[in-house]
């Protein structure tokens, strides 16, 4: 049972400010993912929640209680580290038991909990081994087990999967999600990988340069990014951007033209812009229809055919690069000139100077 509240939390390292007044509430039982490019302050924020970094200003509350002054050892949270940080001189069993010994848990209770966690994570067979003798995936399980036995109020994960190979990463992703469903604890998970964020999170917090850009459910961020940064960060491959100027505004959307004079339309509320303003049109690769007989002309520079999916790397005559995703296989060849359709209900529009998104009026992808 734990609600984590951050109220205008600030972190300074000397003269540089790493975290700028972050306010956030993470509800009980929520799986919250902090995502952002490296250096955005997401790990710092997590370490502040853990109590490993001091909070320079602002307040952090656990279940309504201020915990700024509590040490990491007093907050009752558990953390899984990117490097696993298993104690090399202890066996797996000792690694799991260490935290419980420190809070003077009775011996038989320690044995019971360690065994239960080991069974759940399928690490029973190597309880007597040292971390050195384990593979990366096994170490990762032990690191998670060390958090699980403590039965903490909140689980903190600091990029726990970044040292694993791709296949194992997908498997562990599923296991951590399953763990969350089974235990129902509040979990805070830091990653720079937006796929991890999209697949695991109840709530995603997108951070940039120590500030929160947007907080929301995965699809909310995908469908209604509040600015160009979030739009570009969430979704893979990256959203395509086309620069242009506003041509006309009506009730159902905004018309714009790019440098070459080609016209586009986005189904957004044009209240925030005027004719002649510089804007950026955004459209995801999934929504760019390439290969039809109508639409804007593009040159296909490269194609990746994965069998089930095809990715086309195209270029507009003015040099704007576009990526298109086509389900299935395609007959288009490298060097071909194809036509791409930009559908207004799939298009996003951002004010060029501020990056702020205009509210979408109709959302093509919403079911």
């Amino acid at each position: 049972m734990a609600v984590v509240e951050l109220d205008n939390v600030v972190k300074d390292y000397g003269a540089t400010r790493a975290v700028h007044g972050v306010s956030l509430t993470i509800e009980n039982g929520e799986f919250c993912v902090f995502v952002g490019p490296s250096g955005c302050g997401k790990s710092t924020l997590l370490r502040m929640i853990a109590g490993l970094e001091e909070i320079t200003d602002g307040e952090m509350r656990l279940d309504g209680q201020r915990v700024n002054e509590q040490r990491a050892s007093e907050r009752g949270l558990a953390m899984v580290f990117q490097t696993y940080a298993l104690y090399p001189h202890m066996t797996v069993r000792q690694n799991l038991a260490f935290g419980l010994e420190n809070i003077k848990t009775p011996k038989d209770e320690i044995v019971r909990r360690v065994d239960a966690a080991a069974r759940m994570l399928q690490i029973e067979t190597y309880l007597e081994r040292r971390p050195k003798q384990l593979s990366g995936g096994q170490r990762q399980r032990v690191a998670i087990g060390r958090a699980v036995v403590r039965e903490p109020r909140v689980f903190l994960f600091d990029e726990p999967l970044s040292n694993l190979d791709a296949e194992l990463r997908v498997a562990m992703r599923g296991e951590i999600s399953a763990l969350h469903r089974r235990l129902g604890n509040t979990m805070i998970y830091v990653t720079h990988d937006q796929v991890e964020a999209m697949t695991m999170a109840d709530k995603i917090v997108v951070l940039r340069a120590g500030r929160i850009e947007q907080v929301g459910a995965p699809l909310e961020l995908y469908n209604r990014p509040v600015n160009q940064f979030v739009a570009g960060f969430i979704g893979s491959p990256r959203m395509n951007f086309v620069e242009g100027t506003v041509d006309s505004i009506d009730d159902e959307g905004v018309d714009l033209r790019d440098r070459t004079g080609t016209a586009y339309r986005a189904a957004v509320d044009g209240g925030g812009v005027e004719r002649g303003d510089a804007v950026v049109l955004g459209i995801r690769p999934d929504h760019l229809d390439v290969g039809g007989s109508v639409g804007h002309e593009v040159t296909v520079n490269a194609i990746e055919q994965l069998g089930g999916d095809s990715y086309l790397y195209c270029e507009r005559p003015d040099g704007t690069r576009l990526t298109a995703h086509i389900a299935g296989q395609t007959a288009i060849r490298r060097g071909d000139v194809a036509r791409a359709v930009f559908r207004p209900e799939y298009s996003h529009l951002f004010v060029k100077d501020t990056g702020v998104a205009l509210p979408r009026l109709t959302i093509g992808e919403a079911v």
Partner: protein
Amino acid sequence: MSLAFLTRTRGRGRFDLTDWLTWAYLLLAVFLMFGPILWIALSSFKTEAALQEYPPTFLPLAPVTATVEGFDEPLQLFRIIAGEHQGKVLAQVRRIGLVGKMVDPANPGALIDVNINDRVPERAFALAVENYTSLFERFNFGLYFWNSLFITVVATIITVLFNSMAAFALSKYHFRGRTVVFVLIIATLMIPPTINLIPIYLVVSQLGLVNSPWGVIWPAVATPTGVFLLRQYMLTIPDDLLDAARMDHASEWKVYWRIVLPLSAPALAVLVIFSVMWRWNEFLWPLIVLNRSEEFTLQLALNSFQGELQTAWSNLLAMTILTLLPITLVFAVLQKYITTGIAQSGVK
């Protein structure tokens, strides 16, 4: 396996020049390093008389004596190398000037006169174990050994504890002035110990620690070398391990005691070896602080064998060997830790 290692050659199955040179070089080094120790060890088993002999013998040899009928005391045997009795082995009854009055053990009736230049003493390999036993009987070896042991063990424990705590703070905590403190500690290495001698003596004497083992222990426990050695090692312990322990409810003391200290074992072993060698072999400072013979360490006791007029070489050598033994054992036991690193393996 060790035989295979020793007989390994560079050439295929045959000794080539490199092998010969390597062996020659290594044997020379062995001779240079172990020769003196071997010499001391063998000499420590020689009697006082054999030690004074010129030319010296390599092995401890003692004159052979025989009990001859009609004489109460055992008589020393000589081999006659010239003159009328050449080749015989005779026992000497007494010596008068250049003539030895001798007797044939087989025929003890008649005294024979032999020129002392015509005979050489009969000798055989014999260990003068009394050099060692008299250390315990005539000199209070046990007490000196205990004094040395006490100072070495206690000083080493305190040294390791204090230095590792200082190193922990200097390597794992970020505080204002950390570098300054560290540089100050290292800077004390530049001060020759002799300069400190008098100020430290004044402090020790004010504290009433003269003629107490603590007067030797306390000034020695804070070693810049130890702090430096341990700090450099602790820097290699990942901070994540400490943070993980903190998340596991460990207090700072527990982080130090349960995580950092065990992981620093290889560096600690090095410091233990250093500290044991320093304290065990220390001479000048105990000489100044400890004046009463009951408080003497082994090194001081060794020194006291060397009198102004007379030196008891046989006992001195025997005690030297006994003094060397413990430190050799400590090194033999701990040396494997120097090379085995056990940290850095749990992360990644």
